């Protein structure tokens, strides 16, 4: 029974529970609605809730736990001799899973009998070729231990799914019966349902926390795994980045310093472009522009913020890069080798950040009380003097916060640097040279069929951890500054 039908059945049980519960409440009050404690629909909802919620909870927990349990059981049956030189348990398990799905599909397509799929021995039959003929992707010859493991994997998954369906349906029915048993005219159905809804609302709010926990756990565990294979000091202080994918990354040098340098260099170029333009635009829009100009210019500028980053990436790669190359390249000043460079990515990222800086600063400038402006005008200051000597100093903490938020955006930006900054990790001062960033390397280390056990793939998690910590730190400081500043004038 597929998951889809299981969900449909549980929903059907809870719908039936709703109808029966409602009818039962009516009959317990002998048809007089005024005799009921709650509206009849609440009695129905109570039954439906008790049928569906626990059943779905169990379903989710089961779905999470089952692969975990099966994996560990099956992998313990694989003998060490089945793990070839240069391979790992994880890779063999992946092979086992592939073989199991291959068998499943072959049986489903009728190319193999269930009997054969359960009992075939890889050392006597040509199971690999048969699977390949059936259109399954099997990477290598299936050995007997793998075949055995795949067969027991299949059986465990099948029985697990069967048990899961039975348990979930039973829980749904039991819940519905429990709800029905409670139903009588004096039962406080509304209060029960509302309490239940409150719990559901609360768990929805918890998802935010769970996401953070998920991020932190997935980063931390893999980072620890990485540091077990590669010394942390060399990662944090190493000056060269040259991953070698051959030989399971044994000879790689994975120092983060060149990546951090590229990241900060590009971010600084971006901020040098975005901050003055954004700030002047914000000052003009909030202090000088008529409301008509403002209502046109502000949304137009904000379009820049709504454009997906892939568009900026392509713009950097195909428009800005060649343009810069024609000016600074070999035909021009001769200091630029290729279109992808720090300057290319930084410029384009700066354009992307203009509306970010300008709308944040605009809000902050507007929050400066009018009395301060009036006071300054009253003393005879011009508008620009008021801006420079009264408004900007008053808004400074907020603007600093906005710039920090923009910096955190720039550091975490991926697509522009992947396409526009180049791939070579370099420690150089020339902004027209290609450099690479933390985010670009996360992408390049994790795309493709990476083996998660090797340091060259795991390093991406350590990079992600660094990125997460840096941006989180910037965000917390920025939000703190902005919030603290806002309280001053409220």
């Amino acid at each position, binding site marked *: 029974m597929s998951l889809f039908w299981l969900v449909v059945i549980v929903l059907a049980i809870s719908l039936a529970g709703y109808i029966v519960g409602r009818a039962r409440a009516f009959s317990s009050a002998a048809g007089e609605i005024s005799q009921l404690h709650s509206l009849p629909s609440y009695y129905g909802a109570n039954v439906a809730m008790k049928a569906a919620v626990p059943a779905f909870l169990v379903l989710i927990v089961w779905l999470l736990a089952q692969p975990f349990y099966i994996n560990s059981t099956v992998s313990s049956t694989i003998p060490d001799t089945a793990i070839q030189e240069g391979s790992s348990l994880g890779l063999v398990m992946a092979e086992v899973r592939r073989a199991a799905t291959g068998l499943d599909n072959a049986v489903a397509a009728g190319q193999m009998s269930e009997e054969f799929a359960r009992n075939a021995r890889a050392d006597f039959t040509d199971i690999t070729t048969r699977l390949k003929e059936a259109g399954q992707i099997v990477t290598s010859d299936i050995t007997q231990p793998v075949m055995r493991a795949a067969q027991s994997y299949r059986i465990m998954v099948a029985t697990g799914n069967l048990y899961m369906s039975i348990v979930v349906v039973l829980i749904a029915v039991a819940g519905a019966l429990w709800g029905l048993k409670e139903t009588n005219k004096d039962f406080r159905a509304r209060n029960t349902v509302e309490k239940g809804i409150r719990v559901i609302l609360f768990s*929805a*709010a918890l998802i935010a926390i769970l996401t953070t926990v998920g991020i932190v756990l997935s980063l931390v565990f893999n980072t620890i795994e990485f540091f077990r294979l590669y010394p942390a000091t060399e990662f944090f202080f190493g000056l060269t980045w040259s991953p070698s994918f051959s030989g399971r990354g044994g000879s790689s040098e994975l120092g983060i310093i060149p990546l951090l340098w590229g990241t900060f260099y590009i971010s600084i170029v971006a901020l040098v472009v975005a901050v003055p333009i954004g700030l*002047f635009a914000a000052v003009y829009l909030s202090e000088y522009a008529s409301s008509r100009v403002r209502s046109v210019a502000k949304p137009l500028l904000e379009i820049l913020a709504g454009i997906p980053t*892939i568009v900026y990436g*392509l713009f950097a790669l195909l428009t800005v890069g060649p343009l810069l190359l024609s000016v600074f390249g070999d035909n021009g000043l001769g200091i630029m080798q290729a279109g992808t460079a720090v300057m290319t990515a930084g410029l384009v990222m700066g354009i992307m950040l203009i509306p970010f800086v300008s709308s944040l600063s605009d809000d902050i400038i507007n929050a400066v009380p009018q009395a301060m402006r009036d006071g300054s005008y009253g003393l005879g200051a*011009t508008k620009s003097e008021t801006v420079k000597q009264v408004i900007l100093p008053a808004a400074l903490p907020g603007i600093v916060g906005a710039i920090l938020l923009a910096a955190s955006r720039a550091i975490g930006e991926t697509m522009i640097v992947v396409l526009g900054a180049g791939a070579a990790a370099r420690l150089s001062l020339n902004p027209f040279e290609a450099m690479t960033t933390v*985010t670009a390397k996360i992408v390049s280390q994790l795309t493709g069929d990476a083996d998660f056990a090797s340091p060259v793939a795991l390093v991406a998690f350590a990079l992600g951890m660094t990125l997460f910590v840096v941006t989180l730190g910037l965000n917390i400081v920025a939000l703190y500054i902005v919030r603290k500043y806002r309280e001053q004038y409220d």
Partner: protein
Amino acid sequence: MTDATLPPATSEPSSAKPAQPKSLYAIDELTRKRNAAEKRFQAYGIGAIGIGLFFLVVLAIAIISEGIPAFTKTIVEVEFTLTQEQYDEAEGQLFKTKAYEQIFIGALQGQLEEKGLDVPFDASTIERIVGKPGGDIRSFFKADESQLGQPVSFELAASSRVDGYINGRVTRENMTDSRFLQKTDLDLVDILVEASIIRSVFNWSFITGADSGVDNPGGAGIGASVIGSFFMMLVVLFLSLPIGVAASIYLEEFAPQNKFTDLIEVNISNLAAVPSIVFGILGLAVFIQFMHLPQSAPLVGGLVLTLMTLPTIIISTRASLKAVPPSIRDAALGVGASKMQAIFHHVLPLAMPGILTGTIIGLAQALGETAPLLLIGMVGFVARGYPDGFVSGFLDPNSAMPAQIYTWAARADYAFYEKAWGGIIVLLIFLLTMNILAIILRRRFERRW
């Protein structure tokens, strides 16, 4: 009194000329300076906005001018009649497609002569312009022999270099002779264009088709990845809207003022600023590594984007719940509704337009997001075809629009760049539609209390 009696001239010996009576109408040096500074400052502001808008215009021009050619393709249209004898003869030969090619070339020559244009050309030139036409022609007649003896018009796709020449990407100046195209071939192309045998038509297969291999930029289409994006957006919509609204209602209406609520709120505002690639790492580690969900599946992409959009939706939903005045709640409570009833029957419907606007904007953001999709494997040659059904739409490997654009941009053949720009136009049309929808919703239903 003594101060007043002092002669003023002695106190300032340097200012020899007597102080002129100053008129407020005469502008002195300092005022002029200050006014100039004022003007300058204002000009900086206008300049800043001008630069911002200039970038916007440049971006728009780049997208449109580079992307439009993706929507046209160049075809070679030749009409000819294949008789039964020709067919039998060609089928009897050893190199069958070669024989058909000869027939094709003959027909082309005939058509040119008909128009009074007589140019010699050889088979290899034709092969560089339309590839090898023989196979297509043979399979056409093989499939339907009743077409024999009737005039049939063939529309064959021109090679990507010829396409580039027609679109202006390849010119006589910037091209080098290669086995793909030679400068002399362009003379024939010019003549064929003049005879309107080569012409541009609207490229439907770009909009409806799936990704093609690395060696066939002409056949690449964005259709399959649009479907991938669509299924992803379904997941995002059906998860993030209910969860986001539920979380916002809890935080806005029920949450007690305590440390834990603070923790949730700080968490949400921080999640909104976490780089999107980190969500990709989360998706890879949790959904693929840990839960073994299928790689490159729109379901996984949708889950990752849901987690990414939730903070946006929660923030905007809370704002619109906050905008419903307390008097509505009080009135509902006053006539005996429970708190839950007051919220679900009165506050939520009133806040709904705002919530929907926020959701659409969140979805638009998710639709354009690329980085997390790269990590869960929606990149490379993934969008090979359409999913077979509804369930496989969620589970079969597919790409998404931005990931498809990235795939094209990362390929070496520059003919794919044109496709990437074209893909961006399609993506931006979707985003524009969604944003306009959000604006209309806001205008139509927004209430000022």
